[in-house]
């Protein structure tokens, strides 16, 4: 009887471990961003949260500490990329190199990711309409950054909005009305 209990316990813990491993591996992307030295294409990337500067006093103290004085988390830098790389790949690679944490959730069905937070500044931190948006050459694509393939000379900007894009120059919802 005791033997059986032990065996069952071992089986249960094995199942538990498999479940955990599955959870941790969940959403693993099979294709890794390639950091190829032979890349000939370049584009620029910046990450800013200027809109948060005006709302600094409304934010929690701990969050306010995270906002750079000039609102620039990553100044505009020129980066090389390989053909086929997406805005998301580039952003992830650049932010990791700078040790700026980024959290995202991916929806494999749509091959799309949604960036929840950069540098511990998260969506909804500045009200219900706040979050991260990206802009390529001045326009806001209406799809996820992992579906946006880079072209040479692209200017990629991540900006934090407190008003569903209206405060960073996206007039999508203004036009809808």
């Amino acid at each position: 009887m005791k033997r059986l209990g032990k065996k069952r316990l071992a089986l249960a813990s094995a199942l538990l471990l498999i479940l955990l491993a599955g959870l941790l591996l969940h959403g693993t992307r099979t294709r890794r961003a390639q950091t190829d030295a032979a890349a000939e294409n370049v584009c620029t990337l910046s990450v800013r949260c200027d809109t948060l500067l005006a709302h600094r006093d409304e934010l929690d103290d701990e969050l306010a500490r995270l906002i750079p004085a000039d609102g620039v988390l990553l100044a505009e830098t020129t980066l090389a990329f390989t053909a086929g790389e997406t805005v998301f790949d580039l952003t992830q690679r650049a932010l990791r190199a700078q040790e700026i944490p980024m959290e995202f959730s991916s929806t494999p069905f749509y091959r799309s990711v949604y960036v929840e937070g950069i540098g511990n500044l998260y969506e909804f931190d500045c009200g219900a309409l706040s979050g991260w948006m990206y802009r390529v050459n001045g326009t806001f694509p209406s799809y996820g950054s992992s579906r946006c393939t880079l072209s040479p000379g692209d200017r990629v900007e991540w900006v934090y909005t407190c008003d569903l894009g209206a405060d960073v120059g996206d007039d999508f919802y203004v036009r809808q009305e």
Partner: protein
Amino acid sequence: MNERDGLSRRHPLVGFLFFALVLGFSMCLLHPLSLLSSFCGALSYLAALRGAPAARRTLLRLLPLWLLAALLNPAFNHAGVTVLAYLPSGNPLTAESLRFGLAAAGMLVAVLLWFACCTEVMTEDKLLCLFGRASPALALTLSAALRFVPRFAAVFRAVRETQRVNAAAEEGGVLARFRSGAAAFSSVTTWALEHGIETADGMRGRGYGLPGRTSFSLYVFTARDRRVLSWLLFCAAGLLTLALLGRFSWRCFPRVVRAPLDAPGVLAQLWYLALCLTPLFLRGEEG
């Protein structure tokens, strides 16, 4: 009733307030020291109530749950400024999410241990004494519901043992054993439904819940009860004030910030420890 336990011998109101306080504070205070106080208090009280081996068994059963809950958090939560590594999914594994997972899981275990103590001390007759007059239907439902699970298990065990004696349970393969188990489960379910109706009819036959009905209870509110109750109320007021002043505060995100352990901080933690150990102090009392 646990005759040798101080809190069990007190008026139900005292026990009710005590468990409401420790459960409420355990759920809200995530400061590591408060969690430790709560955990130690609950475990030692459970050991006092059920005996050390039973408490150890309960703890061993809760340990995997604690680990699972602790590991689940960093799998879903990636906030925090200290990036330890990157998960295969590409999201960061942060020290803060690990610490929060450990704390939240510790809270879960402490609360479960307090609930285990609560079922030992707050028996059905005490619940009926507390709520029987104010809300007879709720009190009866509550006491029947709390009694249901252990009673169901006991009857199920009895049915299985009868089957085993009849050599029906052990023979045959997995399918046969499953079938006999299902038969036992079915009969116990039927028994439970029937028993519920019989209890309801029985209580109605006794005039339970009728207007003008008096409610008898064994418990008399004594001077000692008043003393313990005022200590608990004193703790509630003091700890609540300290908590509202942020003396217990501990936040994880985006970085770990904890209330300083200055004089008020130490006072807060010691006071909370005293509240958690109250039932152990009461055990020494007589009468």
